[in-house]
């Protein structure tokens, strides 16, 4: 994460803004010159001054993650100007709901086996336990209860509370890959930050 300004090479932000990249440039550690598109997207959606304000309000050790998440959101918004990241959230939420239903159905079958409604021929049925689903709200994610953002959203089932009253934009189309390029911040990816 070397500052590109120390090598007399302007960072992507200063290059884009056509200004001299000064030592201590707030963008330099996070917008290397090899990734011009990253800043271009962020600038298009958020604007340089808004990003500066945001970074100044965050502790230095969190700035890299913050920039990466902004870059991710900006790329999502460039790809889908109407829904941006919210489209991805809606899509993933539907997947979670679907998996929840399948898991509930499988657990119901296991319970029936355990209660001997369906004789299994096995001698010890008490050892069969339904697979407990993940907790039904994102309590481990204390600041991100989606339903709390609007003081109570829709939907009570599933692993978390649904975002409030958003249409499902991906009923007919979906090309957004949340764990694709642009920071690789998906749950399975590594990314630059530790999320």
């Amino acid at each position, binding site marked *: 994460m070397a500052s590109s300004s120390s090598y007399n090479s302007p960072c992507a932000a200063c290059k884009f803004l056509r200004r001299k990249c000064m030592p201590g440039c707030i963008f330099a550690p996070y917008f290397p010159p090899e990734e011009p598109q990253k800043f271009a997207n962020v600038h298009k959606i958020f604007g340089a001054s*808004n990003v500066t304000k945001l970074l100044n309000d965050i502790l230095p050790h969190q700035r890299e993650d913050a920039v990466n998440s902004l870059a991710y959101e900006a790329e999502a918004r460039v790809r889908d100007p109407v829904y941006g990241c919210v489209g991805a959230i809606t899509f993933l939420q539907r997947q979670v709901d679907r998996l929840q239903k399948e898991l509930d159905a499988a657990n119901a079958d296991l319970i029936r086996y355990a209660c001997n409604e369906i004789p*299994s021929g096995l001698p010890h049925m008490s050892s069969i336990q339904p697979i407990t689903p*993940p907790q039904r709200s994102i309590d481990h994610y204390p600041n991100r209860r989606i339903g709390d953002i609007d003081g109570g959203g829709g939907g009570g089932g599933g692993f978390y509370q649904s975002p409030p009253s958003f249409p499902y934009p991906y009923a007919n189309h979906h090309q957004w890959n949340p764990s694709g390029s642009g920071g690789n911040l998906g749950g399975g990816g590594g990314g630059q930050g530790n999320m």
Partner: protein
Amino acid sequence: MNRFHKLDKMTSTRCAVCKYFRRRCPPDCIFAPYFPNNDPQKFTCVHRFYGASNIGKMLEEMSVHLRADAVDSLYYEAKCRIQDPVYGCVGIISSLHQQIQIAQSQLAKAQAELSFLDANLAAAEPTPSHSEPLVQPNGAVDHGLDDPLNTWFY
């Protein structure tokens, strides 16, 4: 009186954006349909991260019937960013990915267990041919393969 009446009319019909910038709200204001003056927080929240001119450009570039959804999604993302300045709504996406992985793994386990139980159920059911021992022509009783006296396989 007429002048004050006109001023009142102008101020009371300004959208939240024009009210924020203390300017006249024209009849064709691009923000007016989506930022009503009775919800000033919506614009201040969105403006904090995106800026009015960026929002205006985004709205201009899309069809009119999509703008309301676009503004709502921008508002949602801005609220997420206020709650979590580092990760914003990307944190939610990451959490959803993790939940999907956990759920898929648990579903696979449950389905494997069900398959195992189904297979055992099928194996444990007695077949009709072995339900009653067969009586051989010589009078001996054939209890099937489990019969130690059954020597057909020798």
